[in-house]
C-alpha cells in the first residue's frame, strides 16, 4: 500500500483507523464462534472428556447439562486455557486456536468465565471489582498509569444498573450476599464486553426470584453475545434454553431443543430417568 493510499484510508470517516482496530478479529463467516473437535482429557487414567465435539453459533444461548462428572467444568477449563488437553482442537472463530494461548490471552480475546463458586475480589469494593474487569490494556505499565475515563465510568455504572448493585457500589465485595456475589461476577464479565461468556452454575444458591432475574439477564444477553451456561437446575434450563447439549461420560449424548431432549430415549435412560 502506497503512502497516498494509506493517507486516503486514514481520511475515511466511516471506519476506525486501521491501526486502532482490534488486531485479532474473530472470523465468524460460517456463523460458528466456537469449534471443539475430538477433545480428549484424562486425569490419571480417568477420561474426563472423551472425543467431544461441540459447535456453538455466534449469538447463541446454549445450555450444557449432564450428571456430575460428565465433563462440563473440564470442558470450560480447556476452553479457557486452564487445563491442557491430550488431543483435539478448540478454535474461536475460524482462525484463533485457543489451545496455543494461555488464560490471560484467551480472556483478552473476549472469552469471559464465571466460576461455579462465586469468585470476586473480596477485599476491594464492587466498583473496583468492575474497574479491574474493564476491557483495557492489561499490561503492567499500562495498568500502573491507568486512569478511568468518563466513558469507562459510565460503562461501570451501566453494568451496576444491569446487575442491580448500584446501592452496593462502594461496599467491599466480601460483604455482599451469596446471590449478589454471583451477580457481581456476571457484572465483571459484562463490563469486559466479551464475545463469548462461559457461565458455570449461575443460579446455585439463589432464591427463586433471583434466579428468575438471572434468567432474564441471560436471555437479554443472547444475540449480542454468545453464552454457554452450565446448570443443574432443570427448571432454570427450561426457562432460558433454546438449544441444550447433554454431556455424558465426557462426550455429547444428545443435542436439540428442550422438548427433543426430554423425549430422547438415551437421555431419559442416563440422566432424566435418574429422578423418576
Amino acid at each position: 500500500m502506497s503512502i497516498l493510499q494509506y493517507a486516503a484510508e486514514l481520511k475515511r470517516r466511516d471506519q476506525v483507523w486501521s491501526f486502532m482496530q482490534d488486531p485479532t478479529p474473530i472470523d465468524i463467516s460460517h456463523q460458528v464462534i466456537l469449534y471443539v473437535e475430538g477433545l480428549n482429557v484424562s486425569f490419571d487414567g480417568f477420561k474426563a472428556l472423551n472425543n467431544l465435539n461441540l459447535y456453538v453459533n455466534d449469538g447463541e444461548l446454549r445450555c450444557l447439562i449432564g450428571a456430575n462428572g460428565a465433563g462440563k467444568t473440564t470442558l470450560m477449563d480447556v476452553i479457557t486455557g486452564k487445563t491442557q488437553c491430550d488431543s483435539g482442537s478448540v478454535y474461536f472463530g475460524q482462525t484463533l486456536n485457543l489451545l496455543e494461548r494461555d488464560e490471560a490471552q484467551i480472556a483478552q480475546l473476549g472469552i469471559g468465565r464465571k466460576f461455579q463458586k462465586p469468585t470476586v475480589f473480596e477485599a476491594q469494593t464492587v466498583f473496583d471489582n468492575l474497574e479491574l474487569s474493564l476491557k483495557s490494556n492489561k499490561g503492567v505499565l499500562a495498568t500502573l498509569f491507568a486512569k478511568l475515563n468518563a466513558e469507562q465510568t459510565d460503562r461501570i455504572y451501566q453494568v451496576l444498573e444491569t446487575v442491580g448493585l448500584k446501592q452496593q457500589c462502594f461496599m467491599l465485595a466480601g460483604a455482599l450476599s451469596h446471590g449478589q456475589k454471583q451477580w457481581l461476577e456476571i457484572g465483571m464479565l459484562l463490563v469486559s464486553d466479551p464475545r463469548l461468556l462461559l457461565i458455570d452454575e449461575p443460579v446455585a444458591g439463589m432464591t427463586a426470584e433471583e434466579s428468575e432475574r438471572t434468567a432474564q439477564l441471560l436471555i437479554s444477553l443472547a444475540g449480542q453475545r454468545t453464552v454457554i451456561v452450565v446448570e443443574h437446575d432443570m427448571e432454570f434450563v427450561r426457562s432460558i434454553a433454546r438449544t441444550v447439549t447433554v454431556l455424558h461420560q465426557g462426550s455429547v449424548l444428545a443435542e436439540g431443543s428442550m422438548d427433543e431432549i426430554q423425549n430422547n430415549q438415551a437421555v431419559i435412560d442416563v440422566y432424566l430417568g435418574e429422578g423418576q
Partner: protein
Amino acid sequence: MSKLSQYFSTRSGLQSSILPFVVILFVATLGCALGNLLFAPDSLFYVSTYTITLLGKYLCYAMLALAVDIIWGYCGILSLGHGAFFALGGYAMGMYLMRQIGDRGVYGNPDLPDFMVFLDWQEIPWFWMGFDHFWFAMIMVALVPGILAFVFGWLAFRSRVTGVYLSIITQAMTYALLLAFFRNEMGFGGNNGLTDFKDILGFSLQADTTRVALLITTAVVLAALLWISQLILSSRFGKVIIAIRDTEARTRFLGYRTDRFKVWLFVYSAVIAAIAGALYVPQVGIINPGEFSPINSIEIVVWVAIGGRGTLVGAIIGALLVNYAKTRFTAIMPEVWLFALGGLFVLVTLYLPKGLMGLYSQYREKFGPKPTQVQR
C-alpha cells in the same frame, strides 16, 4: 456523579494516611540531628552519636520491612529471602567504601583491599572494577539485587510456584548466598566481610556530621519510598496486585498476566531492600555474610506481622518497635530475646491478625470520630 467524587475523596484520604507518619519521622530525625550537633554532651537535649547511628540502623530495618510488606502484605508472596537483597545492596556499598580506604589499610597497599593482600592476590578481580566510583556503586546497589530478583521471580512465578514452596526456595536462595559469600575465593572478604571503612564521598565516617547526614538521608529515602509505594499500590496496578493475592485464578481469567505483575513487584521490593542495605552498611561500618543468614529474613517477616501487614506504615512501625525492644532486651537478658520474639509472633498471629495497625483502626472505629458512611 456525586458518588464518584465521594469515591475519589475516600481514596485520597487513604493516601494522606502516610502524612502524619512522615511528619513525625522528619520532626524526630531533625530533633535528634540538632540535639547531636548543637548541644554539649552534658546538656539535657544532647543526643549521643551512638543513638544517632542506632536510629539510622532502625530506619534501614524499617525500609526493609516496607519491602517485605509490599510483597507479602499486598501480594501474598511470603518471601523468606529478603535479607539476601538487603545484604547484596550492602555489599555493593561496602565495595565502594573498601575502595575509598586506598592506602590507609593495615597493609598500606594502594591498589588492593586488605583481605586481598592477605590472600596474596596480585590484582583486583574484574567484578571489583568500577567500584571506586560512587555512581557506579549506586547503580550496582539497585541493579544486582534487581536482576537476581527478576531472574528468580521470573522462573518461580512462571512455573506457578506459590505459597509455602516459594517461601522455602527464597529461604534456600539466601542460604546458598550465605555459603557462597563465606568462601574466600568469592572475593568478598570471606567470613570477615568488608569492614574498617574510612570515609564516604570524602567525608569521614567517624565524624558526627557524617553520621547525622546519613541518618537524615535514610529518613528522606524512607519517606520517599513510602510515598512512591503508596502511589503504586493505590494505582490500578496495586488493585491488580491485591486481586492476585485474593484470587489469582480470577485475575488471570480477567486477562492479566499475573506472573508479570508478580515479577515486577518482586523486583521493586528487592530494590527497596537493597537500598536499605546500602544505607545500613556505612552506618554500622561492616557487612559480612551473616546478613544473609535465613534467621534474619525470618525476623523481617516477624516485624511486618507485628506492625500489621498490608499497611506500609504498620510494617515500618513494627520494625522500629521490635528493634528498639531488641536493643533493650538484649542488653538486659540476651538469651531470652529470641524466645520473646517467637512468643510475640505467636501472640500476634493468634490475637492480632492485622497487627498493631489493625488494633489502631479497631480502636478508631470504636472510639474515634465516625467516618461518613458511603451508601451502606
